[in-house]
Every structure is written in C-alpha cells, then in structure tokens.
C-alpha cells in the first residue's frame, strides 16, 4: 500500500473551494494517465460554520435567496469526492518543522502541502465609537443575519465606504426598507473603477433611486444620536443621524496565521507569494485575498481562481512529475455589474493613466448614460473603458482590450448610440485565445473544443467548460460564441431530428402540413431514408395528430406510437400498465368513484391519487386493458390521455360556487378548458389549471396554461412548469372575458405545437423563442404574423375531431390484436408477479420471485 500524499487547505471560501475542485480535476487527469497513483488525502479546514458559498451574489440573500441557494458545495459532494472536511475548525497554529496544523478544536492534521486560502476581513477604520452594537460589516452570511436583526429596530442606515462593495451593501439595507445613506471619503463613488465623469452620473442615478450620497466626508466620531441611535460627526462639522452603520472601507488579508508561522508577510499585510503561489516556505501556498503578489492584493474572485489553478497544478507536478506547470502572471481587473439596477462597467486602464493615451467620451444626460473609451496614442488599441447606465458594449470592448484587436477607423463608433452607426464585434471575429469567461478562465477555444467533444446545447457547454458559472457576466457572450460556432458548422445538421430525416421537428411539421402528407410511409418515401426509429416515428405521429387528429392506432399510425400511446396506458417497470380515466377539473360523482373502486377491486389494481386531481390504477396486464376500459366506458368515463404527449389535466379549485373567497366560477372554466383541449397532441405534455381567486389554490402559475380569476374576468399565465426545472408562468394578459381567453389559448397552443422542438415543454420553447414573451404577445394578441384566424380554424378542426381513443380501440379489431399477451395462445406472462404491501399489490422484487419459484419447484 502506497503512503498517502496529504494536502490540507485552510479556509473554504470561493477560492479555497475552487482549489479543491482543481485538485479533483487534476486527480482525474492523472488517473487517466497512470494505473496506480499514490493516493491523495485532501482535508479542508473551515473556520465558518458552513462550507463554501457564493459571496459575489451575497446581496441576493435579501431578495429572497437562502443560504442553500448560495452554497457552492455540500457535505455530500465533498464525501463523494473523498474530501475530508471540518467546519467551525479555525486553524490556530502551523508547525512547519513537523508539517502539522492544529485547529481550535484541538485536532491536528499533518500535511505534505498546505494551502492558505484564509481570505480577508472587512477593514473597520478605528473611528471612536466604532465598536457599538449596531456597527456592522458586510462579508459573511452571519453578517447578513446580524444586519437583518438590526434593521428590525432601525429606520436609518449608513454605509461608510462608497466603493463597489459599499454600494452593494447600500442596496442590501435599502431592500430592508431603511432610509439609506452612503458616506465616502473620496470626492466620488467607486473611485477605483470609474472616472470623475462616470462617478458623477453614477451618483445622480443612485440618488434618484433614493439613496443619499455624501462624498468628501471624513468621519471623526460616532456619538449618541438625537433622533436616531447614533450620530456621525464629520471633519467639516456636519453631522448625520443613523440607527445602523455598515463599514465597507476595503478589505484586509487574514494573515495572522502566516505571521505566527514566520512566513514572509507584506508591510501592509498579505502573505507574500511567488508566481507559483508558494509562500516563503515552498511547501506552503497562499491563494486568493490573503495572498500578496508583487505587492498587490486582488480583491476579486477571478484572480483567486487563477491562483488556485496554478497552485493545484504545481502541487501535482511536484507529486507526480507529469502535470504541466503554469504561472500566475497577474489578472485583468475589469468588472461589469448592476448596482441597484444601474449598469456599471470598468475595463483595463479606466482612468487613462497610460502615457499618451487618448479618450473618447459620450454622455447622454437625459437618458443617464456615460461612456468613455481610452485608446492608445496611435489609435489602434483599446486600453480601457468606463460605462455607466448602459453596459451593452462591455463584452465587445473587453474583447478588444484583452485580445489586442485592431480598433476600427472610427473607434468612437464603439460607444455611440446604435442609430449612428453600429460597430459590434461578432463572436466569430474573436481569436480562439480570446478569454470569454474570466472567472473560470475559459477561452473561445475551450468552448469550441467542448462543441467538438459533442456538447450540443448551451447547458452542456456551461457544465462542461464552467463558462459563465462564476459571476455570470459573460452569459450572453457564451451564448453568442456557441450560436455563431454552431451556425458556422451549419445548424441544420445539429437540428436534424435523427439519422432518417435531415430536418428539425418544425421543418417536418411544415412539410407534412404543406404537402398534406397523411402517413409516416409517405413522409419517409418523400423526405427520409432507412426504416425510421423510436425518435422520428413518435414525432411524426404527434405531428400528424396535431394537424389531422385522426385515430392514433389506425393501421398506419399504430407502428409509430411510443410504448404508452401504443397501448393507451402507462407502461410500468415490470411490463404492466397503469390506467387513468379522465376526471375533468377533478370533479367526480360518488357513483363514478364507486365504479373506479369496483374496477380496481375486481382486477386487483393498486390505486393512488395523482397530482393532477385524478386516480391512477396500477398493475393491469396488457390483456386486461380492454376489459378494464370496457367497464369504465360503460360507466361514462373516457380516456385521460395520461399516456400521451398531449393535454393532460386542468386542475381547479371549487371557485365562487362554494368558496367564500372565489370571484369567478373556476370549476366551470376548468371543465370548459379540459373538454375543449382534451387529447390535443403536442410536442410535450401540457398541464393547465384554473384558480378562482388570487389565493391561487390550483397553482396555475406552475402550469403551461394557467388561468386566475379576477374581479373583472381572467388573468392568463403561460409557459410555467414544475418537474425537473420548475419555472413560474409569465403573466400574458389580464382581465380577459371568456371568449378572448379561449381565443388566446387556442392560438398559443397551435403556435406552440407548430414551432416547438420535439419534447420541448412550453417553458423552454418560450425561452428559446426569439423576442421572448413580447414577441409571443405580438403574434397572439396583435396578430403580427396575420395567422390568428388560421390558428383558430386549426384548433376548431382538432376539437371537432376529438374521439375517446379507448372507445374507438374497443371497436377496432386490428388495434385489439395487440391487447393479448401471446399471438398463439391465451396464457399469461409468468414473469409478472405481485406481492402485497400496505394492503395493495406491488411488483415483486427479484428475491421475492425466487422464493415463489422455490415454492413451486420444491413443494
């Protein structure tokens, strides 16, 4: 057994966590190269009570995000990576002689390599009175809890410090409902990132949002207030009353531990590191905000991530001699952010400090926009930029700067309003080396490589390259690169539904409709090749049903249907089926309930209430399905289409008929909707709901089509869903009368079934629809495509041809042929075995089947 190599990481902030990820990645890469690898032991020691979380988006805590939302990892993830960790375990001592660290809890850990990722703490200027109870800082989730508590007994809050973090903090206390002030020592806000002109505009925008800004103020004392808890006393004699004070006056590195261990530390703090991120002790590394590189501390996450990568690679090259080594060579400090809804961007040399540099400035005071670019003396290179009020050119400008791209003849056009001449840099103009995501250092080449490796959608690109999973600022650019790259490869190839048809679903839909194609064979003959497959056949079946709404199990359509449609029931893991009769709006008579009970009892079916207000009966053998349905249909039930990619249910509350609060008859509307659209075949399942008042008991806002009653009619919500990736529906139109409501739903459903991809739910469809919700409104409400009459006729045709598929099937001898276990005898499938649990059947497990066999074989 090889002895373990031990890496101990002190601190589990964003950078410390990133280092762990890098180690895991390197480890995987090594395993791929070598069979037997000396095992690694990775230990994380965190002083905080929780594992790493996203501090960049901390202010979102006050707009509803929870600690879990901000979490970057979980104990489970670390367990799965085989990473040891301790929380509440501040390291208090490093013994460099014996390579051991000791925590406050008394535990000791030995190391081969030690990583200091201890981060920084907010600097609180030593103003007299700064230690009072409502004087707080803004750094950790615990700080936020303290701010929240303090805000409950406060009316006024002051942030001392008008930098980036200070304004974030101001936003946070403003969201808590306090009268908010920002006090800044310098003459302007965000003096590091923004020039005087930009600072002035920023100030006026922020003041117009109700935050009062006080610049050039030196706070001398925090005394007792007259109206408020405290009084800030400034050097110029003025005072400001407040109940709470938040300090945001910069950061200081946590370097105590390094100092005690006699590691080299900078004059004003920070653990000194070289280009490999090693401290003065080569087996100890420092990364992130505790590290001092060339006398500079980086207070941003991206440089910290770069350091983490450099350190991880160096350690692996030392352990295994085969990893590449890279060096940390500084970082671009450009930033783009939205402060209280105001865009602010700062790129490179924002202040024009480069000798000979020239500036072009565009200022639009009525619209509160300020833009400046700094260009080189020879006017060929972009050196820096400041953007306030409009960040739309940020990505383009950043690419010009980072990649040394030649400026156009008229560089000022880059920041002029678009009507006066647009010069934008398309993603295709970028070199492969262009950095797209600076948080994770992802280049355009990395994205292209991911595409080569088979990533086919944006989500995969993001999880594979990590691009835009840091601050998220590059999301639009990543999408751009992805799409332009796809286009350059010929998008049609990627959108082909399968090997048998060189078309997307939408193109197939148009072909079938325009050429009036009625069968799959005809479509394959004219436009496809081979025999088809389990992708193109059901898709074609769905399109044919959407256009013609013919019986889905007729001779030509039967072979196309997916397993569930094929037997008009839901296939379960053991080969049996479940049966769901339609119960429109969830309304059912006692007589019908009794029939369901009797049928379930007779055929010994397992019964369960579904989420769509119906009853599901499980455990039906294929040959039992027609018998069961005959009884259900005789009692007045019809098929529930639970098996189809089609309209499922319209969930509802009892509405104004019974409810004390209902304002409209939601149940009646639900019945109308369900009876109108039942059985409509679509690219994916469709769920509806109708609520009788704003209390929303039917949960309409989580449905593809949601209707909520108002005093004046109905509000229509569209494109929501639950499931794997829940999405709230968007409000589409308000106070509609019954007729208009149906009209809009008709049009939306037809537009969706015609244009969506295969298995694309309405939520994803809307997100991918160019122009989004506004465009959908134009098409449906304003009839911008002139299609609404046709769409309504189409829907009338489908509604008019509705049939209960089970009723038709029971009368069709060809379709009935398949509802038999065997073509040549009347036996049953012996592999279907049930046992009882909680007084109902369930499929037997393998071991239970064996026991049964044993009994049969061995009497």
């Amino acid at each position: 057994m090889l002895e373990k190599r031990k890496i101990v990481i002190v601190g589990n902030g964003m950078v410390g966590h990133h280092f762990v990820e890098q180690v895991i990645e390197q480890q995987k890469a090594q395993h791929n190269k070598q069979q037997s690898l000396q095992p690694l032991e990775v230990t994380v020691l965190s002083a905080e009570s929780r594992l790493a979380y996203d501090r960049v988006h901390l202010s979102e805590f006050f707009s509803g995000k929870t600690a879990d939302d901000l979490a970057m990892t979980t104990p489970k993830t670390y367990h799965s990576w085989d990473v040891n960790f301790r929380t509440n375990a501040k390291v208090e001592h490093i013994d460099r002689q014996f390579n051991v660290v000791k925590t406050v809890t008394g535990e000791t850990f030995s190391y081969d390599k030690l990583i200091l990722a201890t981060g920084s703490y907010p600097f609180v200027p030593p103003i007299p009175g700064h230690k009072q109870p409502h004087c707080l800082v803004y750094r950790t989730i615990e700080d936020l809890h303290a701010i929240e508590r303090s805000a409950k007994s406060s009316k006024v809050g002051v942030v001392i410090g008008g930098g980036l973090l200070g304004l974030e903090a101001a936003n946070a206390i403003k969201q808590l409902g306090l009268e908010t002030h920002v006090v800044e020592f310098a003459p302007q806000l965000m003096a590091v990132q923004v020039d005087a002109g930009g600072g002035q505009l920023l100030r006026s925008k922020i003041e117009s949002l109700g935050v009062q800004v006080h610049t050039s103020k030196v706070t001398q004392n925090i005394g007792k207030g007259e109206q408020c808890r405290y009084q800030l006393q400034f050097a110029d004699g003025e005072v400001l009353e407040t109940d709470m004070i938040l300090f945001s006056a910069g950061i200081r590195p946590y370097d105590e531990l390094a100092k005690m261990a006699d590691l080299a530390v900078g004059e004003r703090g920070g653990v000194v590191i070289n280009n490999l991120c090693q401290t003065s002790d080569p087996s100890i590394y420092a990364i992130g905000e505790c590290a001092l590189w060339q006398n500079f501390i980086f207070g941003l996450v991206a440089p910290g991530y770069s350091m983490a990568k450099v350190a991880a690679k160096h350690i692996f090259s030392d352990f295994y001699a085969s990893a590449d080594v890279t060096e940390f060579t500084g970082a671009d400090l450009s930033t783009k952010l939205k402060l209280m809804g105001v865009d602010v961007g700062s790129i490179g040399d924002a202040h024009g400090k480069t000798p000979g540099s020239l500036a072009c400035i565009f200022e639009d005071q009525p619209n509160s926009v300020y833009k400046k670019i700094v260009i080189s003396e020879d006017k060929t290179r972009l050196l820096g930029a400041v953007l306030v009020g409009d960040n739309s050119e940020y990505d383009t400008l950043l690419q010009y700067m980072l990649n040394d791209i030649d400026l156009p003849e008229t560089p000022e056009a880059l920041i002029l309003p678009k009507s006066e001449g647009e010069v934008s840099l398309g993603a295709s103009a970028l070199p492969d080396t262009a950095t797209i995501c600076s948080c994770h250092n992802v280049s355009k080449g990395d994205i292209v490589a991911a595409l080569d490796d088979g990533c086919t959608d944006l989500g995969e690109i993001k999880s594979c390259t990590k691009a835009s999973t840091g601050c998220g600022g590059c999301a639009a650019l990543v999408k751009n690169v992805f799409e332009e790259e796809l286009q350059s490869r010929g998008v049609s190839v990627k959108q082909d539904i399968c090997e048998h048809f060189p078309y997307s679903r939408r193109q197939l839909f148009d072909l079938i409709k325009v050429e009036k194609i009625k069968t799959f064979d005809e479509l394959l003959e004219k436009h496809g090749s081979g025999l088809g497959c389990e992708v193109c056949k059901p898709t074609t079946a769905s399109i044919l049903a959407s256009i013609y709404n013919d019986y889905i199990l007729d001779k030509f359509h039967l072979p196309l249907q997916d397993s569930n449609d094929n037997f008009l029931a839901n296939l379960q893991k053991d080969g049996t089926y479940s049966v769901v009769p339609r119960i429109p709006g969830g309304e059912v008579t006692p007589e019908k309930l009794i029939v369901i009970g009797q049928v379930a009892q007779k055929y010994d079916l397992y019964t369960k209430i579904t989420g769509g207000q119906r009853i599901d009966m499980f455990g039906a053998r294929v040959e039992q399905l027609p018998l069961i349905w005959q009884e259900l249909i005789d009692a007045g039930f019809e098929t529930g289409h639970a098996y189809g990619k089609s309209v499922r249910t319209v969930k509802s509350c009892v509405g104004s008929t019974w409810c004390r609060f209902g304002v409209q008859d939601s149940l009646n509307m639900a019945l109308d909707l369900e009876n109108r659209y039942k059985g409509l075949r679509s690219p994916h399942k469709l769920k509806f709901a109708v609520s009788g008042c704003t209390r929303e008991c039917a949960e309409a806002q989580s449905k593809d089509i949601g209707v909520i009653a108002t005093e004046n009619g109905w509000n229509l919500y569209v494109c929501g869903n639950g499931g794997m990736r829940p999405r709230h529906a968007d409000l589409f139109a308000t106070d509609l009368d019954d007729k208009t409501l149906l009209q809009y739903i008709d049009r939306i459903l037809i537009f969706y079934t015609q244009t969506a991809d295969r298995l694309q739910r309405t939520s994803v469809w809307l997100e991918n629809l160019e122009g989004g919700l506004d465009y959908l409104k134009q098409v449906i409400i304003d009839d911008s495509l002139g299609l609404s009459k046709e769409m309504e006729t189409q829907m009338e045709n489908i509604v008019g041809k509705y049939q209960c598929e089970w009723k038709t099937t029971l009368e069709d001898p060809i379709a009935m042929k398949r509802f038999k276990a065997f073509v040549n005898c009347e036996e049953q499938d012996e592999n279907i075995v049930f046992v009882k649990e909680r007084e109902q059947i369930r499929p037997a497990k393998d071991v239970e089947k064996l026991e049964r066999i044993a009994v049969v074989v061995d009497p």
Partner: protein
Amino acid sequence: MSKLTKQLIEKQIQKQVEPLESQSSGQTWHSVCRMSDLIQDAGVCALINDKQIALFNIKRQGKVYAVSNFDPIGKANVMYRGIIGSVQDEPVIASPLYKQQFSLTSGRCLQEQDKALHTFDVRINEDTVQVFL
C-alpha cells in the same frame, strides 16, 4: 443480499424467461400463427415451448424477425411492444422501457455491448409463420 444469492436469482429468472443453450439439441421448426396475425411494422409475442418470442413484420423489407421477448436491461417481457427502426441500415428494435436499441439480425444491444437478445430463424410456410428453436 450475498453475491451468490444474487447470481442464483439471476439464473433462476433467466431460466424462466429465456431459452437455454443446453436445450438446443432438440431444435425444430414450430408453427406459430398466420401471416395475417402479425402486425405490419410492429411486434406481437408468441409462446413457444414456454419461451416468449417477439415477432416483427417489416413491410419495407418483406421480412419477419424473431428475438427473445425478455428485455435484459429493463428485466421484463416487453420487447415486442417496442418501436421498429434502423441504424445505418441495420434493422433494430428499441426497448419500450428504457429505449436501448437491439439489432434484429444479431440481437446485440447498440448502447450496452454486453447485453443481447437471442435471435431465431423465421420462415413463412404457405402463410404460416414458423420459428426455429
């Protein structure tokens, strides 16, 4: 559950639902049904000597294929309910449970190399479908 028990269970279940190689000595042609009992471009299942055999009638090729009906991945007798297709001209059947494709000529699974269906010879004798096993 011990490994041994698990193996035993697998074996017992296989015995129940799949034909055993060792029984191959007495192989012969079995008449199953008429051509009109099959469904064009879809499957039906036949029970022959207690073995479940899925039969597929592919109109375009004018051919009938026979494979074991037990899905070795989903572990249920469902193969006849799958959708017929082709992958680069090779006729395949997709499992209705988890959609893996199996070649109708060789039986091998295209997605999981170590899984396969048994295949059987089929002939049409004066409108009677016959399977050899």
